[in-house]
């Protein structure tokens, strides 16, 4: 192997990391192929090897996936509606400040062929390599918030995007006693994907303030899962609030879009009940 060949992947990775943000500054985004957000729905395999560093994005507007990563010769656009895979120049992919991706308006899409659905996987060939998108395995059992964020890039993106109400967080932090929030979730559940990362973010803000946040992944269907049965959990997400080891309430489903407000309500209810 020549010296150049040995360093080629490194060079490609550098270009991949550096070129996209540069491209973003120079050209307008495509009106349709834009707003790609990181997705945790699938893991990417190339020629049978899992690619943990490959990133999968999805755009609601384009109704398409985009795969990119240093192991790929070029980013790939997968359109379920057109049932085809196309490749595009790395320089025509722009990364926004918030981490989402746009394809630039002057990007040229090269057809790579059709994909096929095999069981729950999506298979296709591009640049002479065999690709497989496999559904991400369910996250089961006891987890910490950080483990949750590490397990799925979409959880991290959603957690980072959420800004809890600072005043409410300060109020929660000032509360005396040990508070534990045990959250049952399903990594397969769309509402969990949307709201549990927000609670993780609240948990980060309350770390070292007498608060503990634990998470517990359950399968689908939930019925028969011993830990869920033990706590009388019939649906997810369900966050159970314990104060000094005693359950004082559950986060109201309606307040999941602002979990710190839900926690405040549960604790206020517990205080009122205690006063009575």
């Amino acid at each position, binding site marked *: 192997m020549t010296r150049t060949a040995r360093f080629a992947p490194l060079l490609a990775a550098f270009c991949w990391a550096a070129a996209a943000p540069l491209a973003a500054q120079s050209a307008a985004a495509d009106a349709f192929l834009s707003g790609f957000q990181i997705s945790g729905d699938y893991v990417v395999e190339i020629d049978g090897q899992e690619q943990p560093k490959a990133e999968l994005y999805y755009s609601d507007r384009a109704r398409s996936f985009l795969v990119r990563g240093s192991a790929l010769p070029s980013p790939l656009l997968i359109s*379920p509606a057109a049932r085809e895979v196309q490749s595009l120049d790395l320089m025509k992919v722009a990364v926004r400040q918030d981490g989402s991706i746009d394809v630039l308006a002057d990007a040229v899409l090269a057809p790579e062929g059709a994909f096929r659905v095999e069981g729950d996987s999506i298979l296709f060939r591009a640049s002479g390599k065999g690709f497989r998108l496999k559904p991400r395995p369910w996250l089961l059992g006891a987890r910490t918030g950080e483990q949750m964020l590490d397990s799925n890039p979409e959880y991290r993106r959603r957690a980072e995007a959420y800004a809890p109400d600072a005043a409410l967080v300060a109020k929660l932090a000032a509360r005396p006693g040990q508070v534990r929030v045990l959250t049952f979730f399903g990594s397969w559940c769309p509402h969990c994907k949307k709201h549990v990362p927000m609670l993780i973010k609240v948990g980060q803000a309350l770390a070292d303030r007498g608060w503990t946040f634990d998470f517990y992944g359950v399968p689908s269907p939930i019925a028969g899962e011993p830990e869920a049965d033990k706590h009388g959990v*019939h649906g997810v997400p*369900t966050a159970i609030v314990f104060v000094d080891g005693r359950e004082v*309430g559950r*986060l109201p489903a*309606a307040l999941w879009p602002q979990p710190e407000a839900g926690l405040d309500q549960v604790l206020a209810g517990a205080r009122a009940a205690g006063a009575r």
Partner: protein
Amino acid sequence: MAVASISSSTPAAAAARPRRGLAVAAYLGGALLGGVLLVAVWAKAIDPGAFVEQIRSEGLEILLPARAIALLVLALEAGLGVALLLNLRRRPVLLVATALVLFFLFLTGRAWWRAEQGIAAPTSACGCFGNLVERTPRQAFLSDLFLLLPGLGLAWLARPGAAAQLGARTLVSGAAAGGAALFAALAPGLPLDDLATRLSPGVELTSICAGVDADRVCLTHLVPAVAAGSHLVVLADVRDPGFAATAEALDAYAARGAEPPLAVLADFTADEHRTLLWTLAPAFDLHEVPAAMLRPLYRTLPRSFRVEEGRVTETWAGLPPEVAQGAGG
């Protein structure tokens, strides 16, 4: 003479008064039970599909298909209801009514016990009054207990002796039984969706909810996008083999960017969503709504409605005219 007559009849009249009072109370008790049974018949007969689902979910599909059982039960309830209203409190009528009431109480009691034991979700309300009334298992048991049992108990007292017009009253009760079964058989084809479901013009989306206590969630929480502005909302069954054709019409509407925007609500699993995404690639917004919230909103799917600023303004059986016409054209 008159005085003597009065004084001689007074003890008999005094003795007859409580008997008559008891007879009136007994009749009213029977009539109350009959009325409750008829209301329950109406609530179930306008949406026989939901009743059939309930029979299956309770594990009562024995010997006969659930649909046949549903029609028989409705006929029985209607016949008993009318018989009690007509004061036909014969022993066989009351024995059947007692058996029916005890069976209903057993079902609702079992559902409550299951919920208390954590065997079933506490949200799975009993559909004894169809989908019109949202009740937890506890509420279902207690309301059945208080609505049915006192009337039944009273109906057994002071039963009339030789009944006048027995044949005519029996005939009317039988006709009611047959009529109820016939109505239930025809109901799916009648335009009764607004009456039979919790979705009708004027309903606020904030009132479309499911669950109890902390688990209670409303449609506006699950699909906040439809809470404001004008939207067409379609309730769909993605498991129906005919959904591909429905999706084509919805796609055509969404793809041409027509206004108002379209939202499709369905109950589906993550696997089903993935399959839909790769096979149908819908251009419309598909939202997951749990069956517990969706089921009381329709008799058959698809069903659709227009919502303006969080309030339902129109409903349609099938797709909205704008979507259906676009598909046809």
